[in-house]
């Protein structure tokens, strides 16, 4: 499932499409400590977080995740979104908590 397909199915907002119509979500990592995310998230993971700053986008690029999902109704600032556009990072937003999004991802990935 692509990030955009995931967003459509569960009512998330697609803030930046980036490569979210082409890449497949193959796993997921939830976290807000960016060093931990960078060290442990895998390529093509959905990166689920409430950490909304420009470094979040940088970590998403370097860890090569499929998308960033920002939870709890939190929004990125324009600088972060501009960086996401430049780097073709798919950004989704949801009003739901991280745990709920993780459950939905787990279901789609066949983990629960």
């Amino acid at each position, binding site marked *: 499932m692509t990030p955009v397909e995931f967003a459509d199915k569960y009512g998330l907002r697609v803030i930046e499409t980036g490569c979210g119509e082409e890449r497949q979500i193959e796993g997921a990592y939830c976290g807000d400590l960016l*060093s931990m995310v960078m060290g442990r998230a895998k390529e093509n993971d959905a990166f689920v977080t409430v*950490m909304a*700053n420009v*470094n979040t986008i*940088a*970590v998403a*690029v370097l860890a*090569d995740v499929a998308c960033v999902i920002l939870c709890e109704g939190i929004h990125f600032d324009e600088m972060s979104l501009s960086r996401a556009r430049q780097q073709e990072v798919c950004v989704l937003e949801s009003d739901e908590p991280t745990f709920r999004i993780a459950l939905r991802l787990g279901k789609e990935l066949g983990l629960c």
Partner: protein
Amino acid sequence: MSGLKWTFEVDGNDFTRAGEASSSLKKKLRALGVSPDIIRRVSIALYEGEINMVIHANGGTIDVEMTPDRIDMVLKDTGKGIPDIEQAMQAGWSTAADEVRSLGFGAGMGLPNMKKNTDEMRIESTVGVGTTVYMTIYIS
């Protein structure tokens, strides 16, 4: 044998620009056809180094050299130095300010991540003079 060389300046005054060197190097390595796994390890190690230079050392200089079998990175700053390198290498140990922590860093994962993603890593540091980190990743 001399390889491809790049130098990056890290601006210590702008936390939001940390990552520009690693992003730039990532693009160069991708264009050169380096394998994705190697690119990922280089990017993560270098980004952590950049963050450290911004947080602790007011910036510095990164020199990268790539030969057919290895990528060497030297991160040099003139910051306050590391009093106890062994302690600094322990996961969870950090002297970062609360402001840095609020941005998602400063959890004491930086140096351990750099070591984990490189094949060789060495730190030289003198308090009050600065720190130089040498990292090597073998390509083959």
